């Protein structure tokens, strides 16, 4: 058991960029300063990881410490995992006094009643974020520390962020445990996925900059005061300003949440000339459109100013943070607006 744990710690340290290993180990707090001083951080990562493993073995690190290191690693580098957002519902109106200790107890009990071979660890952070790490086993084998799921939950909110990675078969159990522990009734997956956890939080918690019109604080129109050369006239200045204004209305001033992609599934009828009778089948034309980008919303915001698209952009693109989804299904226009919605 010890060797497995030590090896696990070693492999976790290997994942950290070399310059930051010291800071992460300090945050972990398991090894003392004196022990950390004995490690030569100028060697290769392989050697550093072996030094750390050695020290951990000497200090008899247990599974809890190893799990904590993994949580800290994932908290500092959350963008290495793919996160999905789930939404819980409840019908009661009572005030919920969320007690962290109660929550932990209920969660653990719910999971372990179905599957005893799990390692569950919790860590609460300053911004009321609770990180839960679950290492899954089977009814016959011990938990595999390399097959982990992560849950991030802010108390008294209906949103849960889950990174399941492997073993999606355990997802229903995980969701059920969340519902019971947080005093909700049911849970449903939202159509919102990304690698950037903080951006997902920004979108559902409405922390991104929405352009609210106010009288005060006064909104100064930021006139671009560069070195204006009086001899140069911009023939298109009114068009430029129009595009800038429309862009501001759609996207706001501040930085956009970071999404990787937006996917549109079209199930619309192919509209063509009645002559081409052969294509006028009664079946809808199926098509999948996917926009990928390192930073999707920023690139959409710069489409109109760069002249690549007309302003205003299609509401299907600009509604992504507002509707909190990046998977869309577009069906025929029976009602005024297509697709199935998640009410925000």
């Amino acid at each position: 058991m010890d060797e497995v744990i030590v090896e696990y710690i070693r492999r976790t340290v290997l994942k950290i960029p070399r310059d930051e290993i010291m800071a992460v180990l300090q945050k972990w707090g398991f090894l003392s300063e004196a022990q950390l001083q004995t490690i030569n951080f100028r060697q290769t990562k392989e050697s550093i990881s072996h030094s750390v493993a050695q020290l951990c073995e000497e200090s008899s690190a247990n599974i809890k410490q190893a799990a904590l290191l993994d949580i800290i690693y994932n908290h500092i580098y959350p963008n290495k995992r793919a996160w999905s957002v789930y939404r819980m519902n409840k019908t009661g109106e009572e005030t919920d006094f969320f007690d962290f200790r109660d929550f932990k107890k209920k969660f653990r009990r719910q999971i372990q009643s179905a599957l005893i071979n799990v390692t569950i660890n919790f860590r609460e952070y300053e911004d009321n974020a609770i990180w839960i790490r679950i290492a899954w086993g089977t009814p016959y084998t011990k938990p595999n520390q390399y097959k982990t799921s992560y849950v991030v939950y802010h108390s008294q909110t209906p949103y849960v962020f889950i990174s399941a990675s492997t073993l999606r078969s355990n997802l229903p159990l995980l969701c059920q445990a969340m519902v019971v522990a947080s005093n909700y009734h049911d849970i449903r997956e939202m159509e919102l996925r990304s690698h950037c956890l903080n951006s997902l939080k920004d979108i559902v918690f409405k922390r991104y900059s929405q352009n609210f019109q106010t009288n005060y604080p006064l909104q100064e129109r930021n006139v671009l005061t560069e070195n204006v050369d009086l001899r140069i006239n911009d023939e298109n200045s009114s068009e430029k300003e129009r595009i800038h204004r429309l862009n501001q209305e759609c996207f706001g001033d501040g930085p956009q949440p970071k999404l990787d992609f937006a996917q549109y599934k079209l199930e619309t009828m192919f509209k063509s000339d009645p002559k081409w009778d052969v294509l006028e089948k009664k079946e809808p034309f199926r098509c999948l459109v996917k926009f990928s980008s390192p930073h999707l919303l920023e690139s959409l915001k710069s489409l109109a100013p760069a002249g690549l698209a007309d302003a205003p952009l299609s509401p299907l693109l600009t509604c992504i943070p507002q509707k909190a989804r990046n998977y869309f299904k577009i069906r025929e226009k029976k009602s005024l607006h297509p697709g199935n919605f998640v009410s925000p």
Partner: protein
Amino acid sequence: MEEGHNSDGKENALCGRSLTAASRDGGGRMSAVPLAQRKVEGGKVYSGDGVLGYLEMLEAQAHELGLKQEEKEQQEKKLDRLKARVQELRARRDELQAKVELQEKRLLDKEALVTDPARPSAQTVLEWKVKSIKGMLQVFYLTGISGKLTKQGVCFCISTAYEGTYLDSYYVDLLINPEVKIQRHSVPVFIPLEQIAKKYLQSDIRRFMSVLSDHLNAYVGRRHQADQLEEHFSDRIEGTLQRNSLCNLLVFNYTVSSDSKTFPFNVRLLYGNLCCSLPTEAILSCTPGTLPLLAKMAAAHSNTFRQMALHKAFDSIINAKESQD
């Protein structure tokens, strides 16, 4: 005559080129001038009449024309050069002129500030009006609930405060037609906005805004108290302050000394009313067995927590303890 020709041979050789040149292009230009005149032209003395003499003369003329043409070409080149120079100088002049104008404009702007104070210009009156309107808007903002009409409805701003400190602002953008609906908002997700909206939004917008404002102000107040406690008294608290998103359950431990012995106290503050920033319940617990001794103190502390703001209550508890010792 033949000798004269021979002595002019060199000249003729020199003119040979110009003769051919003249014959090339000036063939048509040579007018028929009487022989006698050409004899004296150019100060040159020709050997005499006759065909050769005539040819000599033509040669010389061609030579002269050639020279003149060269001169003309050179003059044209010079003219072009001078024209280019003129362009250059004109461009430079324009540049300098633009610079001068910019400078003058800047100076004028600076001067505009220093106007005659006795007679307020239209500009200063306008500026004063704008300033007073800005002041009014600020006053509205400071009252806590302000709004601005939008194209489709109205956008309300709730600016929260707790005991004199202004804290966050939250926005609610409402649509008016066909029925009152929230288009978007920046209210934190743990505030029960949907519940409040379901109850009051359709019937009484004022009540809706008032209730929402109460919730937000109370939340911000509780959060502020918890932050103040952590900031100023983290050394008197054992471990960390346990909270949740709404800050309606706070749990922490501190030590109490009585008869020169220290006892740990654990306090759970429950804020049952989300519109209130004081706890509805303050449950103090201590290690089992010590309760009879400390019952009075626990009750007193519980009262203090329920009646005063958290950081002030804690402050008074600690100072009371110190004065006791």
